[in-house]
């Protein structure tokens, strides 16, 4: 029964194969694929011929809007954004296109006022070419190294086995190796004790004591080794380790517990809150609410008398109050606090900034102030404190202290 069915299937198979082969070698295939290629190429040709004129004003505007980054957003182009600045730039582009400016002129004008950061992609010139060329290099390199084995291969006919029409090639058994029958041994639950062990197992233990991945002993040997291990690692050994770890756990637990709770109650929380109060105080400082700022700063300093940021800002506020009320003692105290802050944290930029201003205000020492500004600029502003302001301030002072490029 079975054989006859198989035979008949085989017959049909052969017939079909003959047909197929005939079809494959025949012209039909060529004609069909030629047709497919012709249709696709023709459609493409028609498409490129009829495609919209890219230099129409509307098309140019759409294209240009996609080229510029929305200056007040992250990740968005002018086209995608409806922020006020994007609307301005959209209007600008529309006006310029209407007045007949070229794409390059529009781009140049925007770069002249915003800098390269207005471009949504890096310019395709100078050092920035790297990022435009590198992908090609990467693809080529990757392709070469990983496909070299394929490319350097001669032909399937010369490879050892498996002609392409060999149906066996896909019926290979799944590659799961190391099948063995010793599973019963390897599956013994840990808790069970093995009472009757042949004496030879103990001896085998020494043979397989150290074993790298490269030299694999035979399966049975390994199973024996396992049994031996099980035998050797009696419950006393396990208990010993458990006891050690249990004790370590308890000691570490108590110690760490005390530590965390202590930390939780005082430092960690105060650190989190301190930074919040500090930020708030600094905000007050810059918006002129000196009294609120001083109140918050003294709160922070009450918790940590050596908090450099709080010291610096308190000093700065006291100094200003001193100047306002013409009180030399307050001015001096303020200066001292700023100096303290620098002593505690020598590279705290804001403190250097304050000192620079004090030098200018009180002592009119431009050189000294410049030095302090230099310190201020050398250390990039701390990210936690009013990043926008300090960054702007950095840029501003850099621009002024630089020698004028075009002497007015």
């Amino acid at each position: 029964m079975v054989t006859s069915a198989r035979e008949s299937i085989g017959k049909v198979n052969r017939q079909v194969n003959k047909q197929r082969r005939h079809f494959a070698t025949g012209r039909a295939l060529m004609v069909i694929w030629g047709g497919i290629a012709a249709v696709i190429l023709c459609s493409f040709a028609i498409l490129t011929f009829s495609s919209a004129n890219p230099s129409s004003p509307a098309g140019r505007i759409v294209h240009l809007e996609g080229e510029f980054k929305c200056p007040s957003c992250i990740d968005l182009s002018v086209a995608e954004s409806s922020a006020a600045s994007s609307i301005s730039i959209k209007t600008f582009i529309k006006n310029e296109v209407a007045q007949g400016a070229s794409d390059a002129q529009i781009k140049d004008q925007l770069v002249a006022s915003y800098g390269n950061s207005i471009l949504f992609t890096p310019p395709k010139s100078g050092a920035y070419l790297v990022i435009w060329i590198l992908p090609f290099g990467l693809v080529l390199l990757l392709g070469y190294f990983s496909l070299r084995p394929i490319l350097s291969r001669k032909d399937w006919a010369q490879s050892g086995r498996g002609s392409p029409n060999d149906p066996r090639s896909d019926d290979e058994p799944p590659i799961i190796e190391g099948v063995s029958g010793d599973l019963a041994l390897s599956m013994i639950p840990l808790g069970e004790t093995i009472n009757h062990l042949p004496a030879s197992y103990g001896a085998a233990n020494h043979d397989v004591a150290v074993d790298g991945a490269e030299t694999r002993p035979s399966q049975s040997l390994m199973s024996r080794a396992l049994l031996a291990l099980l035998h050797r690692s009696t419950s006393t050994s396990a208990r010993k380790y458990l006891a050690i770890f249990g004790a370590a756990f308890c000691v570490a637990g108590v110690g760490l517990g005390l530590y965390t709770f202590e930390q939780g109650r005082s430092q960690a929380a105060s650190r989190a809150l301190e930074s919040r109060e500090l930020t708030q105080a600094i905000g007050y400082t810059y918006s002129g609410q000196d009294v609120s700022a001083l109140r918050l700063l003294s709160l922070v300093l009450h918790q940590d008398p050596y908090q450099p940021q709080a010291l610096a800002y308190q000093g700065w506020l006291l100094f200003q109050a001193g100047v306002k009320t013409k009180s030399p003692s307050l001015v001096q105290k303020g200066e001292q606090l700023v100096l303290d802050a620098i002593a505690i944290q020598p590279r705290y930029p804001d403190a250097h900034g304050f000192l620079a201003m004090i030098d200018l205000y009180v002592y009119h020492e431009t050189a000294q102030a410049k030095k302090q500004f230099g310190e201020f600029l050398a250390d990039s502003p701390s990210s936690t404190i009013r990043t926008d302001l300090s960054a702007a301030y950095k840029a501003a002072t850099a621009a002024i202290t630089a020698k004028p490029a075009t002497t007015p």
Partner: protein
Amino acid sequence: MSTSIAKRRAGGAGIKWFGAVTAILLLAFSVFVATRTPASTAVEPSPIVQHSAPSISGPTVTGGRFSLSNYRGEFVLVNFFASWCASCAIEEPQLVRFSKSGIGKVLAVDFQDEDRPAIAFLGRYGANWPAVADPNGQIAVKWGVSAPPESFLVSPSGVVLTKIVGPVTAKELAILVQVAKANGY
């Protein structure tokens, strides 16, 4: 990237070198990245700084006309603001203080705003400086303004000295003017 795709069947030396080079590259990458400052602090210096100021000339919100060149000979703070901008309200008292100190003049540009709310906004703080209307933001584009408040300090000869992003304070401005004077502007 441990995608060690280089297959060198021949010997272990090649792959060892490959591994070592990759590891060193990764180490360098990690050190490089770890020593960078946070991206949010990166600010590109404005390209119009140290150049002569783009012109501001046009109708003010109150109906007159004003031009930046009217203030030639004095330090001018060109302040881009809008009535809908929250942090502009924070800096307004500081601008008033700066204006009263007589160190320099303030010229406001009302960015993408309507006249009526702008007048009310300025009136609330007693700001009496001219505010040129810029409803389409075309002046702002020339100055490279992203979002108000942004301010520019312009020298008496009409050179842009600094760009300040975010609210300004009167004290800072006074200091900046002093530094500028010390540098011979």
